[in-house]
């Protein structure tokens, strides 16, 4: 039970409280670029959620089994080669490996979907290449790395936590970009001072939305208390 509460808190935290766009400012490029129409925004959100899940799964696997100090693969090679004291630490490669893994896997998925599921490709596959270099994806990988490398074994994240974080982050991104698209569709009809047109007003609106999202702060601790009370 506590296990699920923990997962829930990670998910809610990533989706609402520490919303990727409004709290961490990651994924701003598509947030500004693809938020002109609600349907486009929704497709983008779905694609981000999908890619972020793939990327964090891959990066968790690579970090856990290859990169972190004392990871199974590297220590096996080290001991085969003669071994000795010390641990092989490949953490320094993590940024390179993540970006490599993200780019390649996304390209693969894109080609796959394009060949075998053309309708699906039309609706969300076209967003895939755009988000390979989206900071939200790399950011999720970095967050996961923060919770795998250099943490005591008890607190180390498993694949489940990594997945929940990325799903939460993706859902949060979708919420943010769809809200923004809805507002921008209305903005089209309103009188905006000349210099503020375009990105200017979008930033102002995003600021107000960020202010609103600050209201979610503390929801996780309240939820945690609620569940604890319910359990006892």
């Amino acid at each position: 039970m506590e296990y699920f509460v923990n997962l829930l808190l990670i998910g809610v935290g990533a989706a609402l409280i520490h919303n990727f766009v409004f709290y961490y400012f990651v994924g701003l490029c598509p947030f500004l670029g693809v938020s002109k129409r609600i349907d486009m925004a929704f497709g983008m959100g779905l694609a981000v959620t999908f890619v972020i899940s793939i990327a964090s799964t891959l990066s968790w696997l690579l970090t856990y089994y290859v990169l972190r100090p004392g990871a199974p693969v590297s220590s096996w090679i080290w001991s085969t080669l003669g071994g000795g004291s010390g641990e092989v630490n490949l953490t320094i490669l993590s940024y390179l490996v993540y970006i490599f893994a993200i780019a390649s896997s996304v390209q693969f998925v894109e080609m796959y979907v394009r060949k075998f599921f053309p309708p699906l490709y039309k609706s969300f596959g076209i967003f895939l290449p755009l988000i390979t270099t989206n900071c939200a994806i790399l950011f999720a990988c970095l967050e996961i790395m923060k919770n795998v490398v250099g943490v005591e074994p008890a607190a180390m994240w498993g694949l489940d936590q990594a997945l929940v974080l990325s799903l939460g982050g993706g859902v949060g991104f979708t919420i943010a970009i769809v809200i923004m698209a809805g507002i921008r569709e209305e903005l089209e009809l309103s009188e905006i001072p000349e210099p503020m047109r375009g990105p200017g007003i979008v930033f102002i609106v995003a600021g107000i939305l960020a202010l609103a999202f600050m209201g979610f702060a503390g929801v996780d601790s309240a939820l945690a208390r609620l569940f604890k009370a319910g359990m006892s």
Partner: protein
Amino acid sequence: MAMNGPTATERFVNGILPENPVYRQLLGLCPTLAVTAAMKPALTMAGAVLFVLVCANVLVSLIRGLLKPHLRILVFTLTIATFVTIADRLLAAYLYSMSKALGPYVPLIIVNCIIISRCEICSSKQGVVTAIADAFGVAFGYALALLSIATVREILGRGTWLDIPVMPLTQGDYGWSVMILSPGAFLVMGLLLGLWNWVEKRRARGRLGASAPGA
């Protein structure tokens, strides 16, 4: 295509204002907003971007003859990621507190479109000297944008500038906290962008007035 492109000086000057990466091209916004709560992290970030931009531009410019068109982005990304890792480690080693304050935003330079766009536009086509000039110009333009936002946010949010108290009543409970928090970043960015556009328009009209006959 036999074209030489802009000279080193032009590249340098263009990067700062006419093609300012943040205000003009709206590139690299994530770190721009995230690190500008105060001057010091903004300065550090600008320095890190300068380092990565110069190194990546030089290396790409050196190997530009070997690039295959369809693999060029992969090569750029590899190069950038490597230099970002080095920058990240250098910060952690010699400016530990700043490295902690910047957190994930240093590695996020990898996916910052500014650098990849400079590799694509300039250094994969032009020589090393031009590439360096370009890197400095764009990095200064970026720094200018970062510091302008950070100035507004730090002064309004904390009442200090580079940790020097500038606002009256900075003792005690001064603090327009929203300016330091994320909404402040969006609002200040939006308003500065508006200001930038307004000034641009004024200048454009000034030129127009001068050239229009007897208006």
